[in-house]
């Protein structure tokens, strides 16, 4: 079930992560972000997590100060997508240890790397939490080793 996009944004409307699974121009992306953000932020607190925008279903869930929001095609299973979002949050939580918005702000590139180990092309890549964590650890090790070798700070 291909997702069209995944967005993370704060209650104040600041974008923290954007992953696009379909090719769109910059202008189109900005429009989608603007519209979807406005719709989601306008929802009253205890509404259901699904809404319709244009021809896609938007599934969103709020975790603390961040909204996790994704756009689905018509035949996709919304309830399962909620589980996908939850799984992503769990992965972030495992990696950062009690993840909060600041972690994602200051380590946005890591958030992307984790996402890329979990989803690809809008589909779930790995269903095991453990497997994703192991991959991240190993890749990180690769990174630091090289940097240590170069005796330079990572960035």
């Amino acid at each position: 079930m291909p997702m069209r996009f995944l967005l993370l944004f704060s209650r104040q409307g600041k974008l923290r992560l954007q992953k696009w699974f379909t090719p769109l121009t910059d202008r189109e992306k900005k429009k989608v972000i603007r519209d979807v953000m406005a719709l989601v932020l306008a929802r009253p607190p205890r509404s259901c997590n699904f809404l319709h925008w244009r021809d896609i279903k938007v599934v969103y869930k709020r975790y603390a100060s961040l909204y996790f929001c994704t756009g689905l095609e018509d035949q996709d299973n919304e309830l399962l997508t909620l589980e996908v979002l939850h799984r992503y949050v769990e992965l972030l939580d495992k990696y950062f240890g009690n993840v909060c918005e600041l972690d994602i702000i200051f380590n946005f590139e890591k958030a992307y790397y984790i996402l890329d180990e979990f989803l690809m092309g809008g589909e779930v890549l790995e269903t095991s939490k453990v497997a994703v964590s192991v991959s991240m650890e190993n890749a990180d090790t690769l990174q630091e080793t090289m940097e240590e070798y170069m005796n330079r700070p990572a960035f």
Partner: protein
Amino acid sequence: MPAPIRLRELIRTIRTARTQAEEREMIQKECAAIRSSFREEDNTYRCRNVAKLLYMHMLGYPAHFGQLECLKLIASQKFTDKRIGYLGAMLLLDERQDVHLLMTNCIKNDLNHSTQYVQGLALCTLGCMGSSEMCRDLAGEVEKLLKTSNSYLRKKAALCAVHVIRKVPELMEMFLPATKNLLSEKNHGVLHTSVVLLTEMCERSPDMLAHFRKNEKLVPQLVRILKNLIMSGYSPEHDVSGISDPFLQVRILRLLRILGKSDDDSSEAMNDILAQVATNTETSKNVGNAILYETVLTIMDIKSESGLRVLAINILGRFLLNNDKNIRYVALTSLLKTVQTDHNAVQRHRSTIVDCLKDLDVSIKRRAMELSFALVNGNNIRGMMKELLYFLDSCDPEFKADCASGVFLAAEKYAPSKRWHIDTIMRVLTTAGSYVRDDSVPNLIQLITNSVEMHAYTVQRLYKALLDDISQQPLVQVASWCIGEYGDLLVSGQCEEEEPIQVTEDEVLDVLEGLLVSNLSAAVTRGYSLTAIMKLSTRFSGVNRIKKVVSIYGSSIDVELQQRAVEYNALFKKYDHMRPALLERMPIMEKSASNGPTEIVQTNGETEPSVVDSKHPPPVSQPANQANDLLDLLGGNDVVPVIQTTVPTKPASAGGELLDLLGDLSLSGVPTPAPSVATSQPSFLLDGLSSQPLFNDIAAAAIPPMTAYNKNGLKIDFTFERANPNPNVAVITIHASNSTEADMTDFVFQAAVPKTFQLQLLSPSSNVVPALNQGTVTQVIRVLNPQKLRMRIKLTYTLKGSPVQDLAEVNNFPPQSWQ
């Protein structure tokens, strides 16, 4: 040159900015530094600079100048560089830029890298944003990796293959061999992505689908895997709230759906496992319900046995009662999809669905409304409409327009009685009047006109509604039209359906004049009320007040109002003799099949006579009519249109065709058509004319009736009377009956007589001859100076969709009819 600041440092700094301007300034400064750093081809810090650029890009600032740098990072040997480089490529580049093609070579090399994580990066990037060209170039590499034993790479290669197939469907064949033993993997990641790949292939190509069904025996394999997932014990790695790998379960169910659709054998093979999943899945948490949801969708789509289908609908029914809003929403959505095919089963849950109308959540309300309209039928219309009207009262404005339209449609299809229909529409107009669509006003007017027995009741209710509230324009327009039309019934207190109210003529005129002056009235509404006031001049006794109003508006600033007033004024002054005929009661209107603009064809007294101003457009409230045509036909002089009010057929063309008919006749060998329609004898017609049917008090001379025509199931009988005032006029009433099984519609009866006679054809009672002799159409013919009467008649009607036309001569008139 000092080292560029670190990423986290930059982020910290930018976050301290207090205004947008301050932030912009910081960003511009940093961008300049980064740009110069890029220019210097600094390898060491490129990684850091691109990372910062990506951060600024996320804030919304342009970062395109970093695209080439990403490519350089990808080409670097350091893993850190590659990681950021590929991330940058995915964020900043897309297939629209030519630059991205430069990546192809790098990706190719990285796909063959010794480190699996580098290979993984390349696969990931290709699978997320690879263009068709890149996919074509690299498909071979991906296919190779699909066959590797390394599960980390295999799962990534599978999803990359999915992307390649989506971009270049022709390459699908290439991956077929590699799929052979994908499903025998133990690794869930590989299993999951394999199922996705197989799904994609089956969805895209019916050949593939057939191949996988038959040759690969996919269904048994999938059933086995699913069974293991359900039956196996606790697996901590894949467990979600007690369910083992729900993601994989759902994907398998989805693939089963595709395999089982329209295929009996496959559907048969999966019946058991579906039943098992449906009954055993734990429903306390969202994850269990996600699986159940997918199961229901699968059951509904394949050729499942009926017991399974009922089980599925019941699960949806249980979902509807769940506390969780998401689940209720999902249930309503699914029921909407199945309501067409399993209508009865969904009807059982109607009361729950209707309860969802009262839910607080907007998404749920909308779904419930759509589903409720889909469930309305002849049996439940009364109950459902009550709920829907209640919903209309209390819902948000965004729903009102759709709800009102839905109510009108449902009422039109299933109204149990005319009174109920009118009451329902009244309710909609009074509660959501401003939200109804524009075409509802003429539709409603037509409905009211055609409900003849409800006129008094309708006008009374509308009048009372007007007294309460004149702000909702559609309601006001309909009400003023009705009052203009049926004001006499209102004042005389004739209502049978409810307690008649006491209204004087002055009070009615007060209300209508109030509409004219009120600020709330739209221009269109004012037009309606002015016309209504004018029409009352023939229905009320006191015309002076009306004359005054009309003359005042003759100098109105609104051009439309002014023109109407001027013409109505002229009607009072110069053409007062025409006024009664022109402002008469409206006839029953014909309706065209669809609910598009109705084709209403009649002469009605509403039109400004063409003698006054032939260029005047018909008033907005009036449908198109052919009065002008008729008057033209009659010479366009001071001749009152002869044809009476209730003319569902086309009087203008009837006149023309009669003349034509006479041209055919060669009764007396004279080719020139005798004008049997009264053009040349205005005096005769005016003498005989009255606005009421003539034959009420005719002395029944005992002239025996006769059958004039009997063919193809259509029988026409003539009965005779002598007109009382003028014994030379024979009044013949035709009775048309239909013994076939289908109604005859668009029935037109025309008659012509030899030129020594004169014939007047009055309007028929209707133009539908009901089937199986359930009723007759009657029409009156008056013949002057009857001697041995002969007549040629022409009949046209539509039977079962095909038009029928027939000519006949009637010679067997009884001798008493002309003596």
